[in-house]
């Protein structure tokens, strides 16, 4: 690749990583501060399996970890793939609230774009 193309690739990759990581980070922080606002987005079968506080804390920690992984730029191919699967699960679990999760469709496509951008990297 030419030097300019490499730099463009880095910039696009950075903004895509930030675009996907920041909403995950915000969701993790907000779910910790006001868990009652996020409980409704949890699948009912999971709510029956685990205590609500542990479920939300666990998912917040997962989101925090995923956002840090995305921002780090380490093995972005796998981090973005995991983000796609996570967003797909969030959309599927809340499809009845499509008027809210339609934004997650955009995020999922951005994560897919990031994955495509890094698919040939080790």
């Amino acid at each position, binding site marked *: 690749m030419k030097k*300019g193309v490499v*730099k463009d690739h*880095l*910039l696009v*990759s*950075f903004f895509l990583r930030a675009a996907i990581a*920041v909403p995950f*980070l*915000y969701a993790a*922080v*907000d779910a910790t*501060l*006001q868990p009652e606002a996020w409980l409704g987005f949890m699948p009912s079968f999971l709510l029956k399996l685990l205590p609500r506080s542990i479920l939300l804390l666990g998912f917040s920690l997962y989101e925090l970890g995923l956002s*840090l992984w995305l*921002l780090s*730029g380490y093995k972005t191919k796998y981090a973005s793939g995991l983000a796609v699967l996570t967003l797909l699960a969030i959309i599927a679990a809340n499809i009845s609230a499509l008027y809210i999760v339609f934004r997650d469709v955009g995020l999922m496509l951005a994560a897919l774009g990031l994955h495509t951008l890094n698919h040939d990297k080790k």
Partner: protein
Amino acid sequence: MTAFTASFITLAIVGMLDAGYLVWKHYHNSTKPFVCPLNGDCSKVTESDWSHIFYVRNEVLGLLFYAAMLGAGIITFVKQEFFLLSFPLASLIKLAAGTGLLFSLFLLWVQKYKIENYCFYCMLSALITLLLFVNSFFL
């Protein structure tokens, strides 16, 4: 208001990651060049004569600033929940964020006119500080 507290805390964490990367790069990984998406030479900025103020490196100051903002955000949330504090915390946060923004603007001026080079991570830090300042009015 809790949503704005969450965004304030999120911005502080992102700022800590940005400043933390610069600190880590300087103290543990200084031999490898920066990965700069803006085609600039970050090390020309981060290792310049302007990289210190009062013997403290700018990125260390930034890290401390974002850590303080994170602490302030958490205290704001606790205050909202339990009404424990009575001093004007919101005014202090605005003042601190405003000071941070002015310092960031000064560093942008230094990059443009004194060093004549840009550091992507420093510009990102300035953007985060601007957003923190705006966010501080909604806490």
